[in-house]
């Protein structure tokens, strides 16, 4: 019934129980370097300058790399197979994440992707649905 993010501070989510919740990754941006990063740190990871401003990252980008994981790795709580890859955002940032498409042959370099909320597993203790972020191919939604 209830839902919670897998870890606080990684993303902002509107109503996690909505059909298609409003979601955005919380990153950082350094005015000195002009570079973005994720997750949010207090120090620019490329230059060491402690001038980071919190920024919501673009929710759209293009596919830079992908695969599918076919056997459950240690500690994993979701289903297999699952897609795993990297999306390049307009701010020049390459972000890792789950990919909603788990058949690698159905994806291609540079294809448009967007951010979605991904229900990963149900917490056995609290009964909560645990939410993480994922990237979905734009063609998957008829928007």
């Amino acid at each position, binding site marked *: 019934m209830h839902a919670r993010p897998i870890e606080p501070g990684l993303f902002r989510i509107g109503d996690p129980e909505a059909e298609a919740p409003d979601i955005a990754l919380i990153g950082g941006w350094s005015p000195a370097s002009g570079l973005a990063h*994720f997750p949010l740190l207090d120090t620019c*990871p490329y230059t060491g300058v402690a001038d980071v401003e919190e920024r919501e990252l673009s929710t759209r980008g293009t596919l830079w790399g992908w695969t599918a994981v076919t056997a459950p*790795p240690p500690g994993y709580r979701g289903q297999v197979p699952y897609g795993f890859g990297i999306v390049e955002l307009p701010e*020049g*940032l*390459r972000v*890792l994440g*789950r990919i909603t498409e788990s058949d690698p042959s159905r994806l291609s370099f540079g294809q448009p992707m967007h951010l979605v909320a991904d229900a990963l597993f149900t917490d056995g203790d609290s009964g909560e649905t645990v939410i993480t972020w994922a990237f979905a191919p734009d063609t998957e939604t008829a928007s």
Partner: protein
Amino acid sequence: MSAGSAGSAGSAVEIAGVGLHPFGRFDGKSVTRMGVEAVRGALGDAGLDGGSPSHPPFQAAFCATAYGGVAAGHKVLGALALTGMPIVDIEAGCASGGAAIQLAAGAIAAGQFDCVLVFGIEKMPKGIIRSSFFEPWREEAGLAATPSYFALRAQRLMRERGVTKADLAEVVVKNRRHGVHNPNAMFRKEVSADEVLASRVVCEPLHLWMLCSPNEGAAAVVLRAARPNGNGASVHRPTVTLRSAALRSHLPGSVLGEATPMSGIDDSAIPPPSRLAADTAYETAGLGPDDVDVVECQDTDAARELISYEELRLCAPGEQARLVGDGSASLGGRRPVNPSGGLLSKGEPLGASALAQVVELVEQLRGTAGARQVANAKVGLAHTVGRGANACVMIVSR
């Protein structure tokens, strides 16, 4: 040599003895026992057996291990009644053994010690390597699976360097062919490219046989200040000198680097840690890639070996598949890579793997590698890279 960074000239460091416990699965045998056998072998090879607590044959010991637990090195040397000197465990991921050699060689070059024992021991859990490196949420979300990172690197290598899946299979065929002749390897059977490509897909484009197996084993190396009048060994053999041992960590920014961050930027101008370590090692040794006769490099997966070729300056960008395809990197070729069979044949016990590379190179330079012998090998290079990120490049010569 000088330790790590170029510049200061100190005592030359020789590799006085090497020892190895085979790599594989040894149910019921403790990691301490494996370490004892490797250390005994190295001390015997160096002509230093018969030491005692009152007369230890070395003044310090470094033990490389990632999963060995607290004071793992003390347990091994305690079982040999060789304690009293400083004993320090070293962890630097896949480069742990290289890190231990770098510290030992630096201490000898600086005159702190005359003789240092370096050994590596490991008994890895079966299956995908699990690491406390990752936060639990990242494991739960499936964002901490090592083969999936290897797969993304392989995919980018294929896209940017014209490598094909068939080329990846040929790396496995080569290393497994070499491993047939290594009595200390886990897998000693030749495989065909078709068989490799018929093994199950773990993470596209990587099939199961393109990935090395985490396993168990131990290796040991005795380092000491070079003797002006020969190595004092009871049998005549070439003295093998450690010309450089360079350990480097990553520079930030690469999303696919071994530091495995959650994000990154355009990294086309960011040198990877293996390149940093290689350049430092070449400079310190006063040698270049063309001087190297034999290479042992990190082949955690088939793509990793090809990525290493370019990072180590063994080929120009885009030429890595040719080195395998035309036989240059095979035994009998111009510059054989992984004559031991590599991790793809031996398996990977983290703390021992870099030291086993040194054992292989010492045998090659002594001319005692049997069916794996690289003709007239004078200069060898060993490379490891992994978690941290840590990368180590060592150059040895005779």
